[in-house]
């Protein structure tokens, strides 16, 4: 649906005068209702990045809490600016089948004229929130052991060199994956598979934390994990529902599916937990919610509500066992970004090819509704995104590693990155912390 809409909308965009004028004619094509929904959807998706900071921040040890949270928060700044400067143009500029161009760099020509039924500026911002969170998602694989400055350089490059092209392929309306008919309602491939693969590569390039596999590394604040999961779910209604780009039946379908699929995943995860250990874990519940949300992301506006219940329930199985198994390997994808986002996204993308139903989405059918070919297209898009993301992420990290070291020294890793990289502690009672007055500060720095 979405990529079709983009398809229709983009020529308009490209033709837009570079003027900043509020063109009266264009304004008349705006729908207030659609604009209202996209305004709040944009706000909702932006909230997901702080939510992610809590989801991730609660899972690490307290000495790395702020570092982990800042890996998300900093994306709100750096990736936010980069999107306006180059990212949007690279992703949605006309360009060619593979990548956009610089025609809209510095938001040149992006104004209040209608793109579909909403101001094109608003479309830019909505897409920007996706860019921000995708970069932040990767951080879950490298927490507790990546130098913050290296991380900053990495996500900046990654956003422009990996996210923008992949987004262009699928959603720009004039690129190869979209043309093939790959279905990705709100970013199963663009966001989740993409980030999930980058995460695995980053975890491999950086290597495991020094304590990994030797000590128990336990979440320091599980309520924060639940808070993050709750706010992520809330924000995801904008992520999926807003991907309809209108306040219509498809938005309603996407939103309802975004409610039902995670419910089903959570229920299935509970059953698996009871079966395996008899204990329904809270970290498991938070994980299940995210997995269900990921799984329904590519499918949200394409499948029936009951299909989304099935997608949620089915996806629980591989992700549950992948997480169990991963912890027994030497792959320190610390917060299981691949098992949750990568694998969840793959399942979602494939199941979209199975359950898509033109009776609901007004266009595309999947395997179960007589169009087995769709599954092939979905598989192709998965493979393409995985290959490209994996390869370029690897190259970027190697290059960043030439410029600056990726990891702090072992003693610094032991002290925790909050102190080392941020000069702060997440929780402090102030005891034994002595104020440095100006003179002291100077002499102590000396």
């Amino acid at each position: 649906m979405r990529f079709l809409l983009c398809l229709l909308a983009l020529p308009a965009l490209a033709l837009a005068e570079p003027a900043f004028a509020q063109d009266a004619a264009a304004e008349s094509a705006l729908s207030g209702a659609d604009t209202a929904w996209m305004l709040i959807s944009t706000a909702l998706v932006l909230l997901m990045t702080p939510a992610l900071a809590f989801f991730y921040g609660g899972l690490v040890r307290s000495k790395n809490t702020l570092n982990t949270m800042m890996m998300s928060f900093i994306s709100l700044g750096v990736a936010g600016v980069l999107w306006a400067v180059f990212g949007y143009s690279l992703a949605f500029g006309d360009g060619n089948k593979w990548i956009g161009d610089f025609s809209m760099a510095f938001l040149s020509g992006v104004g209040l004229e209608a793109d579909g039924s909403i101001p094109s500026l608003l479309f830019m911002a909505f897409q920007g929130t996706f860019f921000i969170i995708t970069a932040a998602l990767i951080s879950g694989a490298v927490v507790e052991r990546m130098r913050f400055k290296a991380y900053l350089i990495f996500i900046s490059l990654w956003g422009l060199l990996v996210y923008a092209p992949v987004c262009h392929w699928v959603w720009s309306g004039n690129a190869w994956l979209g043309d093939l008919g790959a279905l990705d309602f709100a970013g199963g491939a663009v966001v989740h598979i993409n980030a999930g693969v980058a995460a695995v590569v980053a975890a491999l390039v950086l290597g495991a934390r020094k304590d990994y596999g030797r000590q128990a590394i336990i979440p320091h604040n599980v309520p924060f994990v639940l808070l993050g999961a709750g706010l992520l779910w809330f924000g995801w209604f904008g992520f999926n529902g807003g991907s309809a780009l209108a306040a219509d039946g498809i938005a309603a379908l996407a939103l309802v599916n975004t409610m039902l699929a995670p419910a089903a995943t959570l229920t299935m995860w509970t059953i698996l937990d009871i079966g395996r250990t008899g204990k329904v874990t809270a970290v498991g519940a938070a994980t299940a919610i995210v997995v269900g949300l990921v799984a329904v992301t590519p499918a949200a506006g394409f499948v029936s509500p009951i299909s989304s219940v099935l997608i949620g329930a089915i996806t629980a199985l591989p992700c549950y066992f992948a997480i169990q198994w991963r912890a027994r390997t030497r792959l320190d994808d610390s917060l299981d970004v691949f098992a949750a986002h990568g694998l969840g996204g793959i399942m979602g993308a494939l199941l979209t090819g199975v359950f898509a139903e033109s009776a609901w989405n007004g266009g595309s059918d999947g395997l179960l509704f007589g169009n087995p070919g769709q599954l092939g297209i979905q598989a192709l898009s998965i493979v393409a995104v995985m290959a490209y993301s994996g390869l370029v992420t690897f190259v970027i990290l190697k290059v960043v590693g030439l410029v600056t070291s990726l990891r702090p020294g072992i003693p610094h890793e032991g002290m925790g990155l909050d102190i080392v990289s941020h000069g702060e502690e997440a929780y402090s009672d102030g005891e034994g912390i002595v104020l440095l007055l100006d003179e002291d500060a100077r002499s102590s720095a000396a």
Partner: protein
Amino acid sequence: MKLVRAIIRPEKLTDVLTALFQAEITGLTVTRVRGHGGETEIVETYRGTTAKKELTEKIMLDIGVSDPVLDTAIETLVAAARTGEVGDGKVFVLPVEKIYRIRTGEEDVSAVTPIAAEASA
């Protein structure tokens, strides 16, 4: 003078405090600690990580007492802290060479004599 150091169950703290106060032992210091003894083991699971909690929450009491009060203190404490289940804890009696009250500089026995009058003020 002696320092009585007792390790007890957290849920027994209220009972122990009440008993000690009734026995007019009101000066004491409490620390949250964790102990390993013969208690049952606890296994925790976080995603794929399974871990054994080797330490259970305990409370440590430090009570500086003058020699005549020592036996009362120990008896009261042990009686109030006992459940009969493994994990009730231990009492250590350490010799003390000197005690000072910081506020007044008073030494030894008078340093640990509660100041009943002021306390109620």
